[in-house]
């Protein structure tokens, strides 16, 4: 299965407070994602095969979850004003990786979903 063969997860960093320690690496593309009842914005993240991205997750309201299917990315996005969660993701082969809020956040919780699309370079 494509999703299972793609080795993707590089690291999961949670920076709940400013100044969270993080090893400097080649600077990956930074993507800001805002979570709000009941959506992620953007809900689709595109990257090229081999590209590493750093996803900064902030909430506009309550605490949310961010779990990427078939990876070990599973973090809590802190409540509004209480920092951010940061995860890194590298797509090693083409595929689609669904993500979702996995922390009950209200009546429309199950609508909070999105996907990471890994495409061949030049697509």
């Amino acid at each position, binding site marked *: 299965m494509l999703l299972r063969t793609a080795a993707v997860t590089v690291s999961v960093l949670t920076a709940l407070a400013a100044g969270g320690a993080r090893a400097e690496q080649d600077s990956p593309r930074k993507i800001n994602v805002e979570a709000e009842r*009941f959506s992620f914005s953007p*809900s689709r993240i595109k990257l090229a095969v081999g590209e590493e991205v750093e996803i900064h997750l902030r909430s506009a309201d309550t605490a949310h979850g961010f779990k990427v299917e078939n990876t070990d990315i599973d973090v809590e996005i802190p*409540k509004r004003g209480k920092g951010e969660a940061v995860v890194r993701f590298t797509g090693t082969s083409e595929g*689609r990786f669904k993500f979702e809020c996995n922390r009950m956040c*209200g*009546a429309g919780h*199950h609508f909070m979903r999105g996907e990471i699309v890994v495409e061949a370079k030049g697509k």
Partner: protein
Amino acid sequence: MSGYMEMHLNSPDDGPAILDFHRFVLLFAHRFTDRIRFVGELEVEHAFVEGLEEAGELELEQAYLDFLISRAFNVRAGMVLVPIGIINERHEPPVFHGVERPFVDTVIVPTTWFEVGAGIHGEVGTGLRYRGYVLAPLNALEFSAEEGIREGRQKGAEANVRNAAVSGRVEYLSVPGLQIAASGWYGDSSFAVPRLDTKVWVAEADARYRLGRAEMRAQYAHVGIGDAGRLNEAIERTTGVSPNVASQLRGFYVEGAWQVWNQGPARDAALFARYENFDTQFRMPAGFVPLEEFDRTAWIFGATYYPDPDVAIKIDYTTQKSQSGFIRLPRSLNVGIGWWF
């Protein structure tokens, strides 16, 4: 388990102050597998439930299974929230300003509107979401002049499905901070009196936008009730009183809010103002005269303070006016506290 609660103090200028534990809501979730999930929402309204009394209500507002098939296509079945308007599916106390929900979301869109049924939902492209359900219809014999279709909700309680209703919503979420949506409902609601042809439709559009410290939201909702003249006659034969149900209801509101304190919890507060215009007698069937006291406007001014993003302490001043020269609607000072956990 999660949930939310809200407690209100309503002090109108024409009567005694009321202290009410308005809502106590518990949400339950269970995951059978990654793709089959359950959500339930059980609500106690007004703290106390007694049989056959006009007191509180114990309501099963949600109890559904989601079959998550793909991002674009999923199936849901059970007790679901009707996907109409800003508030009906998104009503946790910290997410809206004002102690009480908007009037438009009470007498035009009858929140909390939930019903048994099944349907599909998903997202296509970047931020284009949809949902569509087949549901039990409304019971037109319960419609009224003052509250429109509100009392017609069957609430999944041995609901009559001689006819089915359909409801859907489309949301556009691609622009950060902006949500634009349109929704609708349609169903034959005269199952209790089959010779009537009471087809009911609800059309609704709404938008929310957040930019820096500013937040704006607006909603328009319109309801059509077919065969309303004969419906009034049928109800009058049963009750002895004509309910004066309109053939069309209409309401809208606009709200602006400004985050006056945004240094993070617990230094987080907003001021807001909302104008509402709602008329449950907007168009009348032939031979019926509109009751002007139900053509109403309201201004709500207030503040929301967040000691924590999941706790909202609210205060507002609400004034209502009607087109009637004889009936004066109350002004009220309202204080509330609501929380999510």
